[in-house]
C-alpha cells in the first residue's frame, strides 16, 4: 500500500541530477560522487575500471541504503588528473569497450548464422 513506485528505481525525480560531486576535504585529490537512480550495475563496473587507471589511487563505492536507488563512488587520484577527469576517462573507456563488445558479438553471431544457412533456428 505504501510501497514506493517501482519506477523510482530508475527515473530521476524532478530536478534531480544523475551525478553530483562532493570534494572530499579529508584527503587531497579525492571526491565522492553520488549517483542517483543507479545501482551496482553501474557502480561496480566503474569501480573496477577506475582501478585500472594508473592515476587512480583509490576507487570504491557503497550503496548507503538498499531501499534507495543511489550509490556513492569515492575516487582518489594522484595529482596528475582530478577525480572528475578520472571518472570521465573511465566512462569513455568503458563506452569504447562496450562498442568493441557489440562489434565482436555481431561478428560472431553473423558468422554463426552463415554457417547454419539462415537466420532462423540457427542451431538444429
Amino acid at each position, binding site marked *: 500500500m505504501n510501497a514506493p513506485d517501482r519506477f523510482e528505481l530508475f527515473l530521476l525525480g524532478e530536478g534531480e541530477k544523475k*551525478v553530483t560531486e562532493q570534494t572530499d576535504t579529508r584527503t587531497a585529490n579525492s571526491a565522492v560522487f553520488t549517483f542517483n537512480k543507479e545501482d*551496482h550495475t*553501474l557502480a561496480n563496473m*566503474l569501480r573496477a575500471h577506475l582501478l585500472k587507471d594508473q592515476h587512480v589511487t583509490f576507487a570504491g563505492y557503497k550503496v548507503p541504503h538498499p531501499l534507495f536507488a543511489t550509490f556513492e563512488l569515492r575516487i582518489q587520484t594522484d595529482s596528475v588528473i582530478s577525480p572528475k577527469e578520472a571518472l570521465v576517462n573511465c566512462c*569513455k573507456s568503458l*563506452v*569504447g569497450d562496450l562498442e568493441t563488445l557489440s562489434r*565482436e558479438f555481431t561478428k560472431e553471431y553473423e558468422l554463426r548464422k552463415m554457417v547454419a544457412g539462415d537466420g532462423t533456428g540457427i542451431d538444429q
Partner: protein
Amino acid sequence: MEYDPMIMDTEATGPSVKITEAGSHHVDFELQGVDLAFANSLRRVVLAEVPTMAIDLVEFSANTSVLADEFIAHRLGLIPLNSKNVDDVAYSRDCDLCNDRCENCSVTLSLHARCTGDDIMRVYARDLVVDGGRANQWVGSPVITDPEGLGTVICKLRKGQELNVKCIAKKGIAKEHAKWAPTSAVGFEYDPHNKLRHTELWFEEDASKEWPKSKYADWEEPPQEGEPFDYDAVPERFYFEVESVGNLEPDAIIQQGIKVLQQKLASVIQTVTEGEGGDINGMNGADDYNNGPRSPDTGMVGSGWQGDTGYTTPGYGGGNASTWGAGAATPYGATPYGQSHSNGWS
C-alpha cells in the same frame, strides 16, 4: 581527446566473444578480455534493464469466466509480446505526442471470446488481436512458439461464459515489473574448477564426488595436484547462457543490454561535464535530460545510437549542436565523443 590511455594489463585486446551455441531462443557464449565487474554488469543489465513490450492496462467489458478480473489481467501481463525494434516505441510516461497514450507509445490488443458449445473452451494468446496502429509491424504481437500456433492459455470458458477485454501494452523494463523481462534465465559462470576459491563447495565427505562438474570444466585446465594458490589470479573467461522468452531475439537482447550500459555511461559523462566548453546549444538537451523524470534512454540517444543517422530527438539538439555526435556517420565508439570542439567536448 587528451586522456591517458588506461593501464590494462590483460586487456590490451579488449573484449572478445566466442559463441558456442545459438538458436532462435537462446545464445551461449564465452566472454573474454573483460573483468568480473564488466561481465556481471552485462548480466545484470540484460536481466533487468532491456526494454520490451508487455500488457500494462486491461479494460474489462465482460468477464463471466470463473477467474476474477485482476487474475486475468495479471495473466495477460505475463504473456510475452513481440518487442522487435522496440526503440520505435516511446515510453508512455514521456511520449511527446500524447498526454495519456497513443500509437506512438502503446499497442492496443483486444480479446473477445464466448463459449457457445458444450465443450470447455480455451482462450489462447493467439486470440489477442492488435487493434489500430503501432510503432512498427512487430511490436505487441503475442509471441507464439508452439507448433499448433496457439500460445499461452489465458483462461477456460464454459458454455455461456464470455470474456471481452481491451489490453494496452506498453514499453517497460524488468526493473519495474518482471513481465518486461526479455530473458527467462541468464546463465553466468566462471572458473569451473574453483581455482579462485570464490565459492566454498560444502561437502559431506568428498567435494569432488558430491559436486558435479560444470560442462565448462573440460574447457579449462584442471588444477595440478598440490598446486599452490595463485593470489594474483583473476577470473578471465565468462560463460553466458542467455535464454529469451521470445519477445526479442537472443542477439538483440545482448546488443540492447550493451546499449543500455552505454547510455548509462553517456549520461554520467554528460552530467559530470555539463557546462564545460561553453556551447549553450549543446546543453539544452542536457538540461532537458537531467531535470525532471524521464525514462532511462530518452534524451540520450533516440534511435541512432549505433546507427548512422545521428539522432534527432526533439529537444535534444537535433542537428549539429548536439553533444553526442549528431549527424555522425559513424557509431559512437568509432568517432568517440563528438566530432569537433564546437560541441562542448574537447
